[in-house]
């Protein structure tokens, strides 16, 4: 599903990227390149620093050592925000609001892709009929789907997905794969973490292997 063609422009590049927590190395030094249209799987055992890597790339954690380049230039927070979308362990959904209201606030903050609306994307992620249900009443898998709906609505190029397969059933896993595939064909890129040896992605995606 990922054809890392040499022609597609470079999106993100890490050079000897390392992160320390109280002088303890969490990961790195890590080198990788991410092109447009590429989906890369970040693999590693529990505690190998996958989530930390994604949080560094999202701009939530500072970079200790190494360099990060964005579209060939220096990584700058302001140029980067809005063009990336981070989906972490905490889904960023308000339990007292419905899935639709949660999407509305995300769209208000990040902007929306042209030609899509909240109802459409909620139907796409398999939540028709649950649009107005408070998120607290949804199951863990349905909450995940409500968060995944953000991916469809917001205009980001780079997706940073931390364990997007967790809590999802078989059709949910297929949904994530379909979203990733569509995103790649549109020219978007994604970094996806997974702790299992199994990858659910069809084909042979490129991998970044993390070691504790």
């Amino acid at each position, binding site marked *: 599903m990922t054809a890392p063609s040499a022609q597609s422009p470079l999106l993100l590049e890490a050079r000897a990227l390392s992160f320390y927590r109280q002088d303890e190395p969490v990961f790195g030094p890590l080198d990788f390149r991410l092109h447009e249209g590429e989906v890369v799987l970040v693999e590693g055992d529990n505690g190998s620093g996958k989530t930390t890597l994604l949080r560094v790339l999202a*701009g939530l954690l500072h970079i200790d050592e190494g360099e990060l380049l964005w579209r060939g230039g220096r990584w700058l927070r302001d140029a980067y*925000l*809005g063009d990336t979308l*981070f989906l972490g362990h905490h889904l*960023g959904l*308000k339990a007292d609001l419905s899935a639709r209201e949660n999407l509305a606030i995300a*769209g*208000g903050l990040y*902007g929306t*892709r042209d030609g899509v609306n909240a109802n459409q994307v909620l139907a796409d992620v398999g939540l028709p009929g649950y649009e107005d249900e408070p998120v607290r009443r949804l199951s863990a898998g349905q909450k995940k789907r409500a968060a995944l709906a953000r991916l469809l609505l917001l205009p980001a190029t780079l997706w940073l997905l931390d364990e997007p397969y967790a809590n999802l059933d078989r059709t949910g896993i297929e949904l994530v794969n379909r979203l990733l595939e569509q995103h790649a064909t549109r020219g978007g890129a994604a970094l996806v973490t997974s702790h299992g040896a199994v990858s659910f992605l069809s084909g042979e995606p490129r991998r970044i292997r993390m070691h504790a």
Partner: protein
Amino acid sequence: MSQAPLAPACAALLRRDLTLAWRRRGDIAMPVLYALIVVTLFPFALGPEDALLQRIAGGVVLVTVLLAMLLALDAMFRSDIEDGSLEQLVLAPQPLALMLGMKILAHWLTTALPLIVIAPLLAGMLHLPAAVMPVMLLALLLATPLLSLLGAILVALTAGTRRSGMLLALMLLPLCVPVVIFAAGAVAAAQQGLPWLAPIAWLGAALALALVLAPLACAAALRIALDA
């Protein structure tokens, strides 16, 4: 692809926080109830002596309202940190300080405004002269947003720590003192027929400063809290 413009983003965030507060109306009622109970108890404890109550009325109402506000202060960013909404807000392509300003505004509207609305009732229960009422309301209108803004900085600073309630209370005390002194000073001066504009002007000046600086400080503090 459409970039999110600033004004709708502010409106969306404000609407979200107000909707959330409305869905948990019980939480809004709590500080109001607390203030009502405290002020009701004073005449019982001190005796229904008009002159005494009149003398302490302004101070009691101000302190009660400010304390009632502190009850809800702790929760300003907590749920956002717990459910990951704050990460989404920090990563949004919007000026974080302004977004946090909106959150503080929502917090003030849902906790302080109901208290200001019942403040004349509270003051009436303690026989505060009607002529002093406008001065007290003015003092509250300036003191409560100031306290919200100052409190927000401290809540943001302690956001990374668990059980921050104790620390927050200790840090907030020295910041509360000048606010209470100026607000109560204005009310006392008005009650004695003295000019009361100076302390009000001080409150206004502090508020103007806090309006500009507090959201910036909050943004910096929350970025640090998340970067841990």
